[in-house]
């Protein structure tokens, strides 16, 4: 197993080598319009130890809706793999994806939204 796949396995407990590129996850994903790379393509990058997988916006556009995980024929939790890719970046020292002090329209947002964003994009 390559180092990147190893790290993804450590964090998500998912083995990316189970993926045989059927594309079901990407077909079911409702956010692909905004992604620069499809979910199953990102998994290929991880299988090939291409660190570009961490730089694609795919894992950040992912909304953790789990349609991919429910439909994967190999039983892979694709959402957890996306979370692992996010966590690898988030756990880097000094990495900041969001600034909680710069939330637009914070007066209108319910607490649940801010909590979800804070928990998802920071450690």
């Amino acid at each position, binding site marked *: 197993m390559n180092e990147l796949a190893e790290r993804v396995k450590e964090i998500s407990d998912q083995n990316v080598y189970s993926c045989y590129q059927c594309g079901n996850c990407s077909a079911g994903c409702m956010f692909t319009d905004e992604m620069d790379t499809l979910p199953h393509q990102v998994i290929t990058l991880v299988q090939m130890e291409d660190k570009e997988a961490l730089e694609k916006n795919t894992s950040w556009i992912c*909304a953790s809706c789990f349609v991919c995980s429910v439909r994967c024929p190999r039983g892979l939790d694709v959402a957890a793999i996306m979370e692992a890719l996010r966590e690898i970046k988030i756990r880097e020292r000094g990495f900041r994806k969001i600034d909680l002090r710069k939330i637009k329209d914070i007066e209108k947002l319910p607490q*649940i939204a801010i909590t979800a964003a804070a928990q998802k994009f920071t450690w």
Partner: protein
Amino acid sequence: MVIMVEVLYYPGCSLRNTYPEFEKSTYAACEKLGINLVEIPEWNCCGVVPSLAADNVMRHLGAVRSFIKAQEKGKEIGTNVVVTLCSMCYNVLKRVNLILKEQVDTLKNVNDFIDDQPDYVPELEIVHFLNLLKNVGFDKVKERIVTPLRGLKVAPYYGCALLRPDRPEGVPIDDPENPTVIEDLIRSIGAEPVEFPFRTECCGNYHIVFEPSIVEMRTKKIIGSARLGKADVILSPCPLCTYNLQHGNETLDRSEQVPVVFFTQLLALSLGVKSHLSTEI
């Protein structure tokens, strides 16, 4: 009102703070239905989105602290059932509880870390309010309806958190691809559920904070689908979905908007009690 069911109740931050009308309508409906909601004392925020990282035990702590308090209160009143109104709370609490039931090491780790409270023994059952209604029986609910909402076309919106993921087993409250529980509720209150192909689509979740355009893209499609089914109103089981859908409505023309209500508000309305609906609806 004869008390048929007494359960522990986990309110969740948004219901208490931002949408008190959802909670009030629930209490009113419960009184009519004979359900006694006993709030868990000193509950902690669940965290909204569960950690999908297998190594992040820290994120379970809020839920576990709430479980410990629920466990103690539950012993007092003789129940181990915790009910939530918010689907996100349901999703987190259910998943954490299942993980702790399955993984003995994680349970030990968490219990050791929380050294200022008694240990959590994973015997609680987490259910969403819709489960509770189903268990009580929609026919019993129908019996107590005072004002059947005849002629009202309702789009049953499920969202993600009630139905997915399907592992650990036990999270979905119904079939993830073809659920019927909200349609059953709608029929029991006398209204008509409409064909709504986008009913299990994601509203955009936390993207409302930093990428609202994603939420707008999603909710326009969901609202559009409800409108195609000729829905008068969209029924939502989650405060975040409600906020996102309302945000989506604001980006549409008046003629394209479909108002969104929380599911217990329509339930309360049909039971003839205060539903705390906003005047325009």
